């Protein structure tokens, strides 16, 4: 059997999996957007009902889910840039694999401090002595 190819733009390896992740994160973000417009619409009901729903966003578990959502949005954004580079830059298709790893590197570099600031309060209230 022939050795597995290094993958084409959409078949196998980086090209395919970045496409899969783009779909999964896109659908996830779409469903969150639906919920998010509904929760924000509560500002037209009363300040109290809005504040009560927003307070759930501040709880540890939902806070962790927000980090996941932020990661999904960031990946979708970075891979979107990669897709545009493939479509509009003449050398884009040739470097699509390298660009996948490049956006993953940017993802990590942004998410590490991002996670620190997003989870700081939760970690402090759960494990710290100060409130």
């Amino acid at each position: 059997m022939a050795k597995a190819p290094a993958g084409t733009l959409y078949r196998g390896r980086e090209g395919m999996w970045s496409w899969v992740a783009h779909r999964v994160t896109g659908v996830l973000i779409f469903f969150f957007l639906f919920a998010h417009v509904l929760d924000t619409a509560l500002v037209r009901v009363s300040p109290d009902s809005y504040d009560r729903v927003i307070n759930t966003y501040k709880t540890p578990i939902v806070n962790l889910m927000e980090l996941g959502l932020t990661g999904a949005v960031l990946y979708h954004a970075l891979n979107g840039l990669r897709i545009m580079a493939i479509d509009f830059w003449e050398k884009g298709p040739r470097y699509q694999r390298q660009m996948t790893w490049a956006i993953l590197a940017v993802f990590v570099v942004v998410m590490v401090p991002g996670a620190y600031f997003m989870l700081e309060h939760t970690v402090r209230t759960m494990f710290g002595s100060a409130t």
Partner: protein
Amino acid sequence: MTATAEGAAPVVIEAPRARRTRHGKGSRTNFEMYSWIFMRMSGLLLIVLVLGHLLIMNVLDSGVQRINFGFVAGRWASPFWRTWDLMQLWLAELHGTNGLRTVINDYAVRDSTRFWLKMLLYTSAFLVLVLGTLVIFTFDPTIK
């Protein structure tokens, strides 16, 4: 190739550069090309709008912990942030709806399943856009 029963049309992949032939309804316009361009143009704007939104709401100045009704009222006192949020709402909802339309077209095999899933999708998009737009335009900071 002979015609087959509905739901089991033979798969024909045209050459990518082949000139589009006009057959049946739906292929008379360049809708798919405009949708392709829209995904890239709206995506570019959304990168600024949404990543900016996430940075302000979740990261800066103790993030989500400081958000409440008063915070929203303070932001929406400025036309700049109302415009930002309105653009974000419309672009994200249309971008997402178009993406989900592609996903439905890819995975829903039966014509009727595809039709009803898309009706559900378009109904939800319509409701989200109308509700979100109304909320931004009719926001009242003095509401009790």
